[in-house]
């Protein structure tokens, strides 16, 4: 049960354990040597950048480099103020929150339904095949997949326009990617097709933990397939559903940067500009780093707040929560 021979259990490291013994303990020394590269990594790549947050409250000039972070003048909340009074602010907020809420309302239930249906496939090989195929697109970057989406939506050569015209749903080809009105739908539908299979993994893991005897008992009692799904499978994965929902709600100000960046163009920008793409443009293309950091910080604080509220609500309503 215990660890190494020299120290059989953690209990042996009492207060009597001195630095001298620590150095003598070769195993302990080796273990510390294994741990510290990772700890140093975290310190350098996570903790050090945290200091950079102060530029959100300063008037920072990129040309002054790192030293400038500490020497720049404090401007209080001016950067935050600039963001909320930005003429693009309300539109960006509408796009970001709107797409995320629609995604929670549409993609979320569809993914859960798909997981339930996957679980109901009786042929094991067909189930495996479906899973493998639907996982595939997740591994392809949006820069590739987005290109395919744009090609398929093209008004002249795209297959979507072809199909819609053939079935008589539209008379003239539609320039889907150039019309702001279609952008939200494009984001949600393509995101759904790309990540539908991948999104089911956690639910399927939860489903695999269900006791098979419950199904057999329900069968003897005469329950139908739908009743089994509704009264056994769904309640069993409700914990996972609540957790995913809480995470989605706290992420309401985040968008998948890649997907938006690839599908965005000057024609649809009114519907496609979200906070993440805007921060990127302002921060790294116009070098307004203090502004971009302020927006990033604001997003994190709101996300944390939402996480807390969603978690609290989930705890009160369903007795399940993340923390």
């Amino acid at each position: 049960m215990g660890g190494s021979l020299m120290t059989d259990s953690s209990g042996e490291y009492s207060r009597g354990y001195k630095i001298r013994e620590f150095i003598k303990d070769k195993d302990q020394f080796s273990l510390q040597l294994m741990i510290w590269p990772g700890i140093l990594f975290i310190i350098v790549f996570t903790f050090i950048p945290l200091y950079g947050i102060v530029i959100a409250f300063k008037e920072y000039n990129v040309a002054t480099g790192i030293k400038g972070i500490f020497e720049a003048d404090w401007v209080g909340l001016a950067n935050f103020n600039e963001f909320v009074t930005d003429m693009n602010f309300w539109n960006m907020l509408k796009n970001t929150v709107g797409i995320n809420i629609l995604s929670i309302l549409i993609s979320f239930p569809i993914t859960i339904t798909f997981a339930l249906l996957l679980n109901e496939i009786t042929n094991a090989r067909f189930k495996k095949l479906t899973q493998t195929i639907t996982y595939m697109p997740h591994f392809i970057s949006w820069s590739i997949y987005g290109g395919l989406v744009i090609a398929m939506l093209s008004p002249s050569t795209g297959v979507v326009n072809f199909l819609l015209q053939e079935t008589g749903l539209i008379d003239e080809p539609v320039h889907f990617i150039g019309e702001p009105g279609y952008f939200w739908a494009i984001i949600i539908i393509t995101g759904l097709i790309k990540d539908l299979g991948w999104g089911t993994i956690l639910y399927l893991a939860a489903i695999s933990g269900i006791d098979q005897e419950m199904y057999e008992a329900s069968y003897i009692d005469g329950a139908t397939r739908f009743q089994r799904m509704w009264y056994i499978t769904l309640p069993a994965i409700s914990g996972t559903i609540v957790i995913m929902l809480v995470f989605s709600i706290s992420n309401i100000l985040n968008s998948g940067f890649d997907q938006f960046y690839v599908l965005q163009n000057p024609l649809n920008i009114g519907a496609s500009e979200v906070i993440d793409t805007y921060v990127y443009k302002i921060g790294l293309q116009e070098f307004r780093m203090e502004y971009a950091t302020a927006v990033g910080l604001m997003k994190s604080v709101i996300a944390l707040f939402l996480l807390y509220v969603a978690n609290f609500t989930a705890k009160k309503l369903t007795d399940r929560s993340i923390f």
Partner: protein
Amino acid sequence: MVKDKSPGNRIFNIVNTIIMIIVIILTLYPFWYSVVGSLNDGLDFAKGGVYVWPREFTLDNYTALFSDIALVKAFGVTFARTVVGTVTHIIFTSMFAYAFSRRNLKFKNFYGAIGLMSMYLSGGLIPYFLLINALGLYDSFWVYIIPWLFSFWDAIIFRNFFSDLPEALIESAKIDGASEWRVFFQIVLPLSKPVVAAIALFTAVGHWNSYYDSMLYTLDSNLQTVQLYIPGNPAPGFRMEFGIFLFIPGKYHRPWRQV
């Protein structure tokens, strides 16, 4: 599972299979479309109507693709970062995870707390960019490797696997006088092939697909990855994935590309 032969059940199975087939077609079609396009003549493709099968079959697109030196170079960079990045990530992260899985590790809670914090805290894009710059990683190949070395999340997955290995194995090795290093590299790691394979797959895919870091942290065109080269290139129709070239033609031979 229970065998149920009622008619309602059979209808359910049929409907379910049909739904699954529709989902499979929706998932696979974009890839099929790009394969078909890649095997079709470019000018002909631009007229539209090539959806299911190539109309004018040709391999010219692939010839043109392989003769693009910049692409081959970008490919080399992506391949190198994927291999080096995955191997180093596995060693670096699993080593941490092994030490973290040992009961006799001192300050374990402290390390755990630091790791947890690293999962939730972030200084944001800009300070991170400045850090990369300050470390001299900007416009260097190592920007693809070093920031990818460690992930606490992967370390937890490794740790869970390591703790399930029989303790007696490690004990007996220790009795025979093996050091922690030897136990890790010669006993624990070889026994952990499934988890190593899983993490390696995720890391490799992440490396292969990553274009954000190439876009942000490199200027040198010799350091461009394939994923950045493809959309950034004047031939936007041209796509590649999983080591297979998939090429949508008609845009590649634009006159301004030669300029």
